[in-house]
């Protein structure tokens, strides 16, 4: 069964701390994504990666960075956490077109609810 896991369901950090959110997928997918979800704003793409060591900015990359050293793992880094980064963070992965039954179908993890105090 397809699986995307995230390191924590709930996380509380203080302003200015460096925060790492980890995501692991076991489907050998090339593409991985980080979103944040806030009430009334839907899902917004922060960064995505289409290969190891490759990354592309999404719609709201400011204040975030990412790392993809291995195919199965995609990390989101908050260099200096701020209160406006309090949110639900969702990781997803997908296979390239032509693989699997649907085009760019994304598989999501359960999410990490981050609170920055």
């Amino acid at each position, binding site marked *: 069964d397809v699986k*995307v896991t995230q390191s924590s369901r709930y996380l509380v950090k203080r302003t200015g701390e460096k925060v790492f959110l980890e995501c692991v997928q076991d489907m050998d997918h090339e*593409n991985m994504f980080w*979103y944040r979800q806030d009430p*009334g*704003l*839907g*899902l*917004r*793409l922060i960064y*995505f990666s*289409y290969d190891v060591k490759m990354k*592309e900015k*999404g*719609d709201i990359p400011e204040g975030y960075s990412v790392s993809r050293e291995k195919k199965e793992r995609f990390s989101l880094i908050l260099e200096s956490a701020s209160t406006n980064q309090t949110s639900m963070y*969702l990781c*997803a992965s*997908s296979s*390239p*077109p032509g693989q699997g039954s*649907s*085009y*760019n*179908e*994304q*598989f*999501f*993890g*359960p*999410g990490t609810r981050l609170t920055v105090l």
Partner: protein
Amino acid sequence: LAKTTQPISMDSYEGQEVNITCSHNNIATNDYITWYQQFPSQGPRFIIQGYKTKVTNEVASLFIPADRKSSTLSLPRVSLSDTAVYYCLASSSGGYQKVTFGTGTKLQVIP
């Protein structure tokens, strides 16, 4: 990048058929229409995808007219467990492109 527009919210009674329409006037030739469902405190999950005409699976049906400028997700005989947010988006078949989930449609099923 094709922008999609859908209602913010809908209410329905249990047992009724629900149709959620999505507008995508600028859809590209190689885009498929994809719908996701999200329950509270969970990530979205794929429910159906189509290019033209009608697609049906065990969860829903998807109707896409010939001009492809809109699509309709149909949920037959909804139950309370169908209460969720439903997202319509365009997914490229021609190599990965960024997709936009937007705010989705919040469906509330009433007993």
